[in-house]
């Protein structure tokens, strides 16, 4: 409770300072709107459905792409960890492409797929896939060999060892890879939505883009706030419970 109050106080002070800066008229109100204006924008768009609509569209793109990236990345990571041939080929490819900022996929996606949902999806998948491949590969390589030997003597074989021993043993690495993949996917999707205006859906990135076009600073800041909140919530809802479980089981610091 005390921690909550302190955090609350911190953000209250932050907003108060912002309001003070607005009232002092240091910058033009076009560049720095009042907190009240941003709140009004959020209220209007929340009630007329614009904000919810954009959020749903963005989240759908993100989740579909993310799941595809995971479903593809996990087995690929296992393959690269298991066989040298895959490690030297797909592993090297993954390492190379992972260093590429995922925004860099946007021009290519646009030329290949045009102004379509497929372009968006492609960018998100590319953001996720390689991180997951690398994290899975690293995770498997860090599994102490004794686990495998112990399982062998208990009668565990091939697929059973992979599913019931190696995969769970590598879980801490895999989860941090999934988290990184999520962050990359989220960033690259925002970049794609800002760059690409497509008619099939109007996401948060596009809302941000039009805020700029209209010089509507309260819209720009409002949408940014929404994006930040979604990121926080994703962390708290998607990853925190899993991470808490891992810390409890492995006895690592929470």
């Amino acid at each position, binding site marked *: 409770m005390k921690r909550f109050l302190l955090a609350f106080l911190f953000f209250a002070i932050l907003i108060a300072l912002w309001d003070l800066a607005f009232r002092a008229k240091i910058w033009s109100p076009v560049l720095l709107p009042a907190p009240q204006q941003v709140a009004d924008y959020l209220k209007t768009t929340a009630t007329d459905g614009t904000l919810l609509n954009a959020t749903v569209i963005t989240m759908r793109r993100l989740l579909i792409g993310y799941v595809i990236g995971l479903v593809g990345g996990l087995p690929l990571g296992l393959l690269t960890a298991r066989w040298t041939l895959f490690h030297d080929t797909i592993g090297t490819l993954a390492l190379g492409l992972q260093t590429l900022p995922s925004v860099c996929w946007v021009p290519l996606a646009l030329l290949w797929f045009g102004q379509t949902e497929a372009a968006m999806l492609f960018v998100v998948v590319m953001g996720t896939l390689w991180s997951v491949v690398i994290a899975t590969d690293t995770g498997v390589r860090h599994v102490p060999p004794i*686990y495998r*030997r*112990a399982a062998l*003597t*208990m*009668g565990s074989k091939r697929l059973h060892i992979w599913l019931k*021993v190696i995969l769970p*043993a590598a*879980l801490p690495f895999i989860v941090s890879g999934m988290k990184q993949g999520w962050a990359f996917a989220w960033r690259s999707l925002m970049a794609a939505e800002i760059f690409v205006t497509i008619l099939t859906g109007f996401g948060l990135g596009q809302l941000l883009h039009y805020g700029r076009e209209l010089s509507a600073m309260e819209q720009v800041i409002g949408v940014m706030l929404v994006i930040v909140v979604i990121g926080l919530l994703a962390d708290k809802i998607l990853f925190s419970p899993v991470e808490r479980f891992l810390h409890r*089981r492995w006895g690592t610091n929470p």
Partner: protein
Amino acid sequence: MRFGHKTGSVTEELALVSPSKLSIEKVSKSFRSRAGTVLALDKVSLNVAEAEFVCIVGASGCGKSTLLNIIAGLEKPDSGTVLADGKPVTAPGRERLVMFQEPALFPWLDVLGNVLFPLKLKPNLTKKDRRDVAKYYLELVDLTRFERANIHELSGGMKQRVALARALAPNPRVLLMDEPFAALDALTREQLYGDLQRIWKSRRKTIVFVTHNVREAVCLGDRVLLFSPHPGRVQEEFIIDLPRPRDLNSVELATYASRITHALKSGAQSEAGTAK
């Protein structure tokens, strides 16, 4: 499946199985290293009777762990055979369970989950049977209260007791123990000697126990085999004719231990002599 009947039961599962007779015949194994080829085991032959407790003692690097891994089926010998009840050992399996120096417990499972792991690999058991069997062995090692604990919450001695319960759970015919108590403090170790003797008596297993601790070997074994290194071979054999349960601090035990230690040292000295 291998068994004729369709469903097992807890009583059947917990019934004593006949312990294996092991015969190791002329097993040799060498390793290549940068320094050249090292002969770890040189035509080692030994027999272990049903329900016998055999301890193998030797300096580190004498090949005793390698021999244990070969009996387990985790490693293949270059030549020679290992027979369990007359059948050659070609792969690891739950008839011969291994306890390692590290507990090798799985951190993603709790205590009960770890003991259940080998049981889930056994066919013909219901979910309830498996739980009952796991709980039986947790009680045997006196850890019932900790069945929901995470592995990292246990002390070193408790971890090895969980590992022992896990090794006993699928009711193997042979228990292979590779210095399982080496990393524990003296008090905990002494307590575990008592536990192990009690369990060995009640569950009747053939046990091959590798250690570098002579007193430990005398305290536990029916027979102590002294291994000499480079190449690894059985140097001498000692029959330990002492009543059980044995007290680690008794004079008789100390007498045996000093005889074996003496033999161990003279072996090491002659080794050093030939090296010059």
